[in-house]
């Protein structure tokens, strides 16, 4: 697990399906400062390609993505 990145906020989307994780992420990312990182946890396998799409469309950067015991962990940096 990536541990050398400072996490400004944590967002638990485990058990949620599209569109909720992306809606919650878009709201949460507005509450951190530009340059800060949010940790998002999800269990929906669709969240893996969806997070790529979120990065492409919003410009916010996926710093890391990992999977452990069926839980996906994304670190996303607010870029603007």
């Amino acid at each position, binding site marked *: 697990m990536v541990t050398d990145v400072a996490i400004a906020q944590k967002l638990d989307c485990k058990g949620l*399906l599209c*569109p909720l994780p992306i809606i919650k992420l878009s709201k949460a990312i507005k509450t951190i400062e530009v340059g800060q990182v949010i940790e998002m946890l999800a269990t929906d396998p669709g969240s893996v390609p969806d997070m790529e*799409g*979120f990065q492409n469309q*919003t410009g916010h950067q996926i710093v890391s993505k990992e999977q452990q015991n069926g839980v996906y962990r994304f670190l996303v940096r607010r870029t603007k």
Partner: protein
Amino acid sequence: MGERAKRLALVASKGSLDQAYPPLILASTAAAMGWEVGIFFTFYGLDILHKKRLEHLQVSPVGNPAMPPPIPAIPMLKVPTLMGALPGMTAMATTMMKGWMAKAKMPTIKEMLDLCVEADVQLIACATTMGVMGITQADLIPAAKCAGATTFLDYAADADVSLFI
């Protein structure tokens, strides 16, 4: 990304429970990514904006061979299509679908609409449908704005993605 926000223009033309979700899911997701979104609710799709009807949208097993069998372990055992026409089958199918949605922690249609309104999705109520079906502005949720096909096309002409649902 350029200066101009991307734009999604949707037509929601169906008023059944299963067909009400896709436009609202696409709209709320696009809005979450910073897109401008407008949905044109036309014909039975207008029921999604109807204060009294939106919480009673139904899904019908009639003509819907995709409706699942009662026993998931036996996939070939489908409910015969004819059975779907029996009294109570639509209510049963609707209850079943609402049950799946709740179990999957999916928002209700009302909650999906609230998410869209909160995200500034434009909800356009088809003026012709309102005239044909005798629906007034007072029957619709407050965020609904009555307009015609011209308004929607004017909006959709600058859309990056446009879908008819």
